[in-house]
């Protein structure tokens, strides 16, 4: 079966409809037993130190994951992806560029999808049919998200893990759905988790392996994972193009702000953790989030290489949770 690497969320409907296996290279990298090895492989290959750890990790993952081609998001994500695709080309991995048009132009996005259909030798209608199949699973992921913040039976890490997997559905939809079903049944039988500080996690998924767990040891739980939730397309539309137009992450920061604001108020969030990746252009967006989410305390956490939280970041998180706890006690008294 054709294994197709992806560098971020793309319309995986086209790969599945063609009988292929989408492989999110980010997930291959971070879920590896030794992700640092993949990153080092990229540095040995000559990638500069001052390049985002995800890009270097994806380079190592693409070579390790035995993919025949990679759909590289050339617009709407990191511009390093273009160079990554070119370097992978020198290693014999073919890449197909996919561009999210910055102005959300419907026609341009449709053309990008038509190109995917042509590449995989399927029709647009095939992909639309696959979307309806995938939506059945996505609906279950929306339910997991709801169980996280409404019923309080799902941890921030579990929420992250299931929602982030929506990009490639572990490459095997049937098995992924069974895993989702089993998890939902298990979580439904749980007692609600203790009421703690309720946090929003915004920004790209963390390269740290233990941030959710550490937050929970400090009396705080993530009940909203911004970008991971977007990977599940949490909005109603039967139109495949419209679906990828309404997806916030590849476009302007202000649509992300509106999405975050709405979810924060709906979910009763006490504080925001903004994760930024070293050397990533998204770091600049911290300025916008701090302006627009001014009513809520916001902690910016920066990660570089995979692994557990470093002592300094733990210190910041600890101080942040302590501050939120004392604000809540003050408000309650």
């Amino acid at each position, binding site marked *: 079966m054709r294994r197709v690497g992806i560098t971020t969320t793309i319309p995986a409907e086209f790969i599945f409809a063609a009988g292929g296996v989408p492989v999110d290279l980010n997930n291959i990298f971070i879920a590896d037993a030794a992700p640092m090895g993949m990153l080092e492989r990229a540095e040995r290959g000559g990638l500069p130190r001052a390049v985002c750890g995800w890009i270097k990790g994806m380079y190592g993952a693409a070579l390790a994951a035995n993919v025949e081609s990679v759909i590289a998001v050339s617009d709407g994500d990191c511009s390093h992806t273009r160079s990554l695709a070119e370097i992978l080309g020198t290693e014999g991995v073919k890449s197909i560029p996919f561009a999210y048009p910055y102005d959300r132009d419907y026609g341009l996005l449709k053309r990008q999808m038509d190109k995917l259909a042509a590449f995989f030798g399927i029709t647009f209608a095939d992909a639309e049919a696959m979307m309806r199949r995938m939506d059945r699973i996505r609906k279950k992921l929306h339910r997991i998200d709801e169980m996280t913040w409404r019923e309080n039976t799902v941890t921030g890490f579990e929420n992250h893990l299931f929602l982030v997997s929506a990009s490639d559905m572990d490459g095997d939809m049937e098995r992924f759905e069974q895993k989702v079903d089993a998890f939902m049944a298990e979580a439904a039988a749980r007692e609600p988790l203790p009421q703690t500080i309720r946090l929003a996690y915004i920004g790209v998924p963390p390269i740290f392996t233990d941030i959710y767990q550490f937050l929970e040891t400090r009396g705080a739980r993530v009940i909203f994972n911004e970008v991971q939730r977007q990977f599940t397309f949490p909005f109603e539309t039967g139109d495949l193009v419209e679906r990828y137009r309404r997806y916030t992450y590849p476009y302007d920061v202000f649509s992300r702000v509106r999405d975050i604001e709405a979810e924060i108020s709906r979910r009763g969030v006490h504080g925001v953790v903004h994760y930024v990746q070293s050397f990533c252009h998204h770091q600049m967006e911290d300025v916008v989030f701090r302006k627009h989410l001014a009513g809520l305390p916001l902690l910016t956490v920066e990660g570089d290489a995979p692994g557990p939280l470093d002592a300094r970041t733990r210190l910041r998180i600890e*101080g942040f949770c302590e501050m939120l706890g004392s604000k809540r006690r003050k408000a309650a008294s």
Partner: protein
Amino acid sequence: MKTLGVDVGSRYVKLAAFDGEELLFAEKLDTIKFYTLCRHAGKVDISRLPVFLEKGFAYERVVSTGYGRYNVRIEGSAVISEIKAHTLGAAYQSGLSDFTLLDLGGQDTKVVRVRGGEVDDFVMNDKCAAGSGRYLENIATILGITPEELAGHTDKPVPLSATCAIFGESEVVGALAEGADIGHICAGANLSVAQRLAPLARRYGSDKYVITGGVACNGGVLEFLGEKLGAELIVPRHPLFNGAIGCALEAAAVNA
């Protein structure tokens, strides 16, 4: 009640001993020496320090903070974050309840907006040594002088990078090679630290900044920083012991 505050830093361990609201004494020890003296049977027993015997001081409660807090559990000690410790210490030492705290340590810069004597919000420096106490120490080492000798200079600062500590160091070597005056290079180092700190400090703009940590002892940095911020900079009596003082006060408050 007699309380003890312990701030376990990367270079020094700072102690502050209180009787109620009164500071009895403050001591600093080399961190390595601290471990040598206190580690016993896999635990860190702070009561083994000779200073308590010398001063005839026995504490009833102890609270600690600092980098050591995850690896070192001091016998009988409660642990608070550095942010909280420094805020409590600065509010006590300055007598203020609404201000912006700038704690300038060896590795970390903390900027805390304090309202009603409590942490309202804070930011910290990014993962870089530029603008830190460690950077000033390194520059002093390159120049073959002490950090104290480097501290006073503000005259004709040689332009040095505020972007990267390592590049900053090579620029110092370059400036020396070009025959620049050592005093002017010192002024340049002090200015580059102030340049790095000012934007972070302005996140919580205030008419009063309380400055603590080792860099608060550098008059040159403070002069440049004061010019940039256009605000009153208040250096309390014990800038180095501020975190330890906050811990000792917390020890008393928890018991009250």
